[in-house]
């Protein structure tokens, strides 16, 4: 009774596409994200032109591109490097302090009871509001900006690393204890590697936060950097120029994000979920 119905779908299955069609479909499928982005830009451009939106409110993509070209390359490089420098210094500081701190917190009940609440308080403080104070205290130079970036980036690294360290299978730590290995070795050989996926997910989030931190700091006090450049451009109603700087910032963020992902892929391929291998 069931056999005719089960065989029916097979006979009515679509005949295989000609090779030509299949290749076109494949190309469309691969290019879909790019096509969607281009379509959005086109809609943006047309909407601004048709509705005659003034460029100081929302510039068209073409106006942004034009203003980007008009800014000297030298100037772009100076501002980009200033932001990148501060971001990377703050980020590096967050990694260098955050990961050892996480190891200490994960292994000491006392430390985690005493320090953790304070970390949460720091994280709950709006850093943007504290930024002017930090600038007053630390004065001119990169230092205040690096500290602001550090404060914004380090919390996710600490929290995620602690979670990762604590996700180590208890039996694995029992094995370590049954071998009579030192705590330090247990951290190095077992806990830290188990935390690698967690650490990298934090590193990816934090690297984009580092750019945000640098820009926030530059809004408060800076003489160059992309954040400063945006503040400067908007104060002169050069909105397309500010948008161009925004595009550079987004690109920078994306590039750093990809760089962290690539590092994980190359150095710790085993730490990726199976589907990403």
């Amino acid at each position: 009774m069931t056999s005719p119905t089960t065989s029916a779908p097979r006979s009515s299955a679509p005949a295989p596409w000609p090779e030509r069609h299949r290749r076109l479909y494949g190309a469309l499928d691969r290019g879909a994200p790019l096509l969607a982005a281009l379509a959005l830009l086109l809609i943006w451009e047309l909407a601004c032109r048709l509705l005659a939106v003034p460029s100081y409110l929302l510039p068209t993509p073409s106006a942004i591109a034009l203003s980007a070209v008009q800014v000297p390359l030298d100037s772009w490089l100076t501002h980009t490097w200033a932001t990148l420098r501060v971001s990377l210094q703050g980020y590096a500081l967050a990694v260098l302090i955050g990961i050892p701190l996480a190891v200490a917190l994960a292994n000491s009940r006392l430390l985690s009871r005493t320090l953790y609440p304070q970390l949460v308080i720091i994280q709950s403080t709006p850093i943007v509001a504290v930024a002017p104070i930090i600038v007053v205290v630390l004065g001119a130079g990169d230092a205040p900006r690096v500290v602001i970036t550090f404060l914004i980036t380090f919390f996710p690294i600490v929290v995620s690393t602690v979670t990762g360290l604590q996700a180590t299978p208890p039996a694995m730590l029992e094995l370590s204890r049954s071998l009579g290995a030192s705590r330090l070795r247990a951290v190095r050989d077992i806990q830290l590697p188990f935390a690698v996926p967690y650490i990298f997910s934090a590193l990816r989030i934090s690297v984009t936060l580092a750019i945000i931190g640098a820009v926030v700091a530059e809004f408060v006090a800076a003489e160059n950097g992309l954040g400063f450049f945006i503040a400067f451009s908007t104060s002169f109603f050069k909105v397309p120029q500010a948008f161009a700087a925004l595009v550079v910032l987004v690109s920078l963020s994306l590039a750093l994000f990809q760089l962290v992902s690539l590092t994980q892929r190359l150095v710790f391929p085993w730490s990726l979920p199976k589907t990403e291998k």
Partner: protein
Amino acid sequence: MTTRMEPGGERPAIRFDRVGQVFTSSDGSRVTALEDVSFTLRRHEFVAVIGPSGCGKSTLLRIIAGLVRPTDGQAEIYGLPVTGPREEVGIVFQQPTLLPWLKVRDNITFPMKHKHGRVTAAEKERADQLLEMVGLGDFAHKRPDELSGGMQQRVGIARALLHDPDILLMDEPFSALDALTRDEMSFELLRIWTERPKTVLFITHSIPEALLLADRILVMSARPGRVREIIDVGLARPRSMQTLSEPRFHDIANHIRAQVFRPGALA
């Protein structure tokens, strides 16, 4: 075989003398995991421990491994009180507990690497021999996630055997495996144990598994864990699939079932 001193002939390999274990949880409540547990294991004897969940079987194993200090009584290995982890003890856990970033062979030599910071050529060679022995000769350079559950557990067993421990503690090692793999692993373990005799303490939930493997079976009662009965299995070795159909096999199995499931036993 090794430079280690051979243990004194008459001394039992493992001895529990009225061992009790009380855990105090963070809210201050106390749980008695073990109470007045006494038994001895002769050298190279295979003893299975069976009992309902939460009867302190794993605690028992952890005490011998030196991971937990008993709150009462004393545990001894070759006549010496257990005060910490000992060299002559190997442990196989319920889960394979392999390190996903290490190749299979490096997982087997991991205890040496972890303890001494390096692995000698002889140890690597021994790891390869053990891999052959557990039937994974071709998998030395695979990562654990490329292996099936049964294969991973074999790697866990090979790792516990690396330093040729005299005492092997196994905490429900086959419980995460499917029934067929489980039988296969049981015979595999018997073969290994015959080749290289060891004192084995094997914790299990499975009555047939205990009967197939052990010389004696320690039947425990539910919380607080006490020794209800120690049964001499008395089935001829070598054991095989035929052992499973012997009348004595069924008699003892029924007897244990009655013990474990008797009224109040699962409270």
